């Protein structure tokens, strides 16, 4: 199960959990599973999130792979100049 770290102000939408374990093989599946388990996270996910999977920042690629032992951090959708 991948470990998904929620930033502090998201935790109130996930029963106060800092880390949520998710069964997923892609970033898209991980997002869908997060929202299914914790519907309160839906607005944040719909607003657009970036993620870091095992240190690799994924801006917006739902097809990017997630491993069974991956460490995932949610980030606000990143913009560049």
């Amino acid at each position, binding site marked *: 199960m991948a470990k998904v770290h929620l*930033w502090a102000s998201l935790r109130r939408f996930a029963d106060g959990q800092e880390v949520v374990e998710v069964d997923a093989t892609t970033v898209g599946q991980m997002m869908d599973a997060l929202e299914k388990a914790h519907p309160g996270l839906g607005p944040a996910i719909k607003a657009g999130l970036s993620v*870091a999977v*095992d240190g690799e920042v994924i*801006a917006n690629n739902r097809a990017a792979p997630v491993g069974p032992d991956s460490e995932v951090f949610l980030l606000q959708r*990143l*913009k560049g*100049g």
Partner: protein
Amino acid sequence: MARDDVKTGYKLIGTRPNRPDGLDKVTGRARYGADFSLPGMLHAAVVRSPHAHARIVKIDASKALALDGVKAVVTRADLPTGLTGEDLNLQDNTLAGERALYDGHAVAAVAATSALLAQDAARLIEVTYEVLPHVTDVDTAMAPGAPIIREGVADYSVPEGMHGNVARYMEFGHGDVEAGFAAADIVREHTYKTEATHQGYIEPHACVGQMGEDGRGEMWVCTQGHWYIRRMSAAVLGIDAANLRVTPSEIGGGFGGKTTIFMEPLSLALSRKAGGRPVKLVMSRSEVLRATGPTASASMDVKLGMKKDGTITAGQVFFRMQGGAFVGMSPIGEALPCAFACYDIPALKHEAVEVIANRPKAAAYRAPGSPMAAFAVESLVDEMCRELKLDPIEVRLKNGATNGSKSSYGPVYNVIGLKETLEAAKDHPNYSAPLGPNQGRGVASGFWFNHGGETSVTLAVGEDGTATVMIGTPDIGGSRASIGLMVAETLGIPYENVRVNVVETGALGVNEPTHGSRATFASGKAAVEAARQAMAEMCRRAAADWGIDPEAVEWKDGAAHPAGPNAGKFPPMTIGEIGSKMGSTGGPISGHHEVTAEGVGASFGTHVVDVEVDPETGRTTILRYLVVQDAGTAIHPAYVEGQYQGGAAQGIGWALNEEYVYGADGRLQNPIFLDYRIPVASDLPMIDTVIVEVPNPGHPYGVRGVGETGITPPLPAVASAIAGATGARIRSLPCSPPKVLAAIKANRA
């Protein structure tokens, strides 16, 4: 210098060939947005609100339409309804709806047979306003009693009880911050402010749009990303993006400000209403400053704990940022992760709010959010180093992030080059140059994530053995040259035999803009893959000619070769020979690659600046400036140096002079370059550069984006140098002469 004197095994990468667009640009032949014209073209002008906040009671265009030669007027009533989210934001900003939300907000647009006539007609459009209370300052906007300028802006993230102008909230961190502060020898806390600044691109926004009765349109436009222009314009006008074809012009600077739309859909709306005649719309400088996206203004609380040996034990920030009257425009999501990204600190807490105010819709600006965050955090680090009499580079080396560090925003860094930049800065002669009276030295480091993104590239082999590469990322800082070098290196052919063209939206799959320091990284990565695909096909053609297996053929030095003695004895077949007969060996040869590029390498840099401050006037002169930054691999070192110098120049402007000045009436007071003071060549010394190369394992040639990090350290570095020269710390940018003089006097008192 990069690898001019270092052996890498590359033949072309790391060299400095002439830029492919150089001749066109120095002879004036390059075509920018305003250079484009079509037969029968009309010219447009925009009516803008003179009020920071007002209800639009009535728009009467009858006098304008009565003028001979005026062909169309559009108002919000001509745009579709029912949009939501960012599409609605874009439409609201393109033309005001019920309310004008900032000084300069577009209210109507008119097209006529000449530009002068259009401007005359715009003045005849009568708009009746009911002026409403306004607020422009970020702190005032969330103070009790501040007018709520748009109801219901708070999204899911905003806790109960915050001011009605707060639109977003974010918090994250790790470790026990209070324990960290308790373990420190000194704990210091200050508030820092930065004003909004504009990207200051020399070329104003310009486009020509044409839309016929069949609902199909075309646009020629100055932009960083024409697929974004297509999608956004189509959304605002309620048409299918597929019906719009967008061609980018050369671009005279963007720095993030041309990744979105401001007035482009108006050219199409006016064209549609004027019977399909093309419409040109070119902004004036005042319109650019009043109505296109500057960066956010920020007010930032920072608290740090430090031991006497320089160990940072804990850090805490609370950022307040406004990005105009529209939600989602301030870069809090970038500023917070950047704040402590250069450090490995055991306990951190980050908080930020986005506040809306009666200012123009902010846009990205070179490493959005990172310069402000660096100003706050790096300034306080410098203050504490001076208090404890510690070397600022040694303190950063002691606390700096390195390979395997857990970043301040969570994930672990892979291969990064921060400490290499610090060591190189420490060893540079600028760092030990003697300082005279009224002179001071400042040091700061900076970070940017970098970005990959949606990318599509095609490469075609020519009959003469050349290669033409079609990319979708407009060339702002030399990407045609760097991509050409990578393709030439990969194919083993001369650089001069590769031509790289930026093509229109009909020629490739979707490309994100040239943003996030991604063009050389992502389009380059895709171009290398496209070249490899073409090489594989050329090997197959040679194998067929030789009657051997394709696996028995290898590509090197621009030709197919038998892979070994067992493959047979055949003379190499060059790309020219293969290209010249490809019509009879199976048809055209090309390579194509499309990807959402991953594998970006994080970017770090360290700057050292020496200044002299005139104690009588408060004027700051930059004496020496050094940029050290990790490029991964510098494909074309001259362009890399140019990015470093350009970032530093913009950051120096932000630090010393640039600011949006609003009057009590909410109107922008300095919407021309005479009053909005960007640095000019005579303000700056030659900016010294050192290219550190810690190759990025996520790119075939080790590239890291280099475009953005350079603007981040100058803000704190310059302020710290001024503190060194005067003993007075400026915590509110810009460090303009009156402010510095007042700080010197206050310090003396």
